[in-house]
């Protein structure tokens, strides 16, 4: 159930593929039947202003433990074999991946439900803060998108 905070650009689907190879080596092949991946990435538009870049601040220590707690909650609520969370921090450009959530399960309903649960919990509880750079200067994002 690892959680990674990354300062630099990451390739979400490469991360998933590499992690999954390790997972198969650890638990054996053919153990899961369903995996879900969510990737949130930076768009180049948000509300009224064009956003040219973004900075993501976090709370070292608390952010990781919040994400670990969320992963464990998902594992208690659904029959999940494993999860992976990667979240970017620092300076981010449009089209960069910001967050990756992956879930492996024997069944697809659990894989979908747990993935979405983790994302919603992350959005509402994990200490990250976005500051957008627009033509008008820096602007803290005040409210998270509900969906």
């Amino acid at each position, binding site marked *: 159930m690892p959680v990674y905070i990354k300062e630099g650009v990451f390739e979400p689907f490469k991360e998933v593929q590499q992690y999954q190879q390790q997972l198969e080596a650890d638990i054996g092949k053919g153990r899961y039947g369903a995996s879900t991946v969510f990737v*949130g990435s930076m768009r180049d538009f948000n509300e009224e202003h064009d956003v040219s870049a973004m900075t*993501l*601040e*976090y*709370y070292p*220590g*608390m952010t990781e*433990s919040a994400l670990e707690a969320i992963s464990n909650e998902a594992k208690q609520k659904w029959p999940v074999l494993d999860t992976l969370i990667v*979240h970017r921090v620092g300076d981010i450009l449009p089209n960069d991946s*910001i*967050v990756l959530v992956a879930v492996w399960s024997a069944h697809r309903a659990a894989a979908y439900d747990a993935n979405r649960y983790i*994302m919603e919990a*992350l*959005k*509402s*509880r*994990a*200490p*990250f*803060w*976005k*500051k957008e750079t627009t033509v008008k200067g820096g602007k*803290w*994002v*005040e*409210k*998270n998108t509900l969906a």
Partner: protein
Amino acid sequence: MSISVKFFARLREELNMDEAQLEHVTGLTALQVWQKITGQPALPPKTLIAVNQEYASEDIVINDNDEVAFFPPVTGG
């Protein structure tokens, strides 16, 4: 008695302070820690509080060596 206080994001910028130490105080609530450090009577609306990296309310009593953090609503993901 020493309390470590942290500020993040917009609060950090507005207060121009990311970290502070509060010495020789005892029995303070999180709100009183905020008042002592910032000189402001109330927390800005929607401010979140974490004590030892777990969410807490403003009337929680702070102990020696605790880490208290104040920050705006989270916007990750």
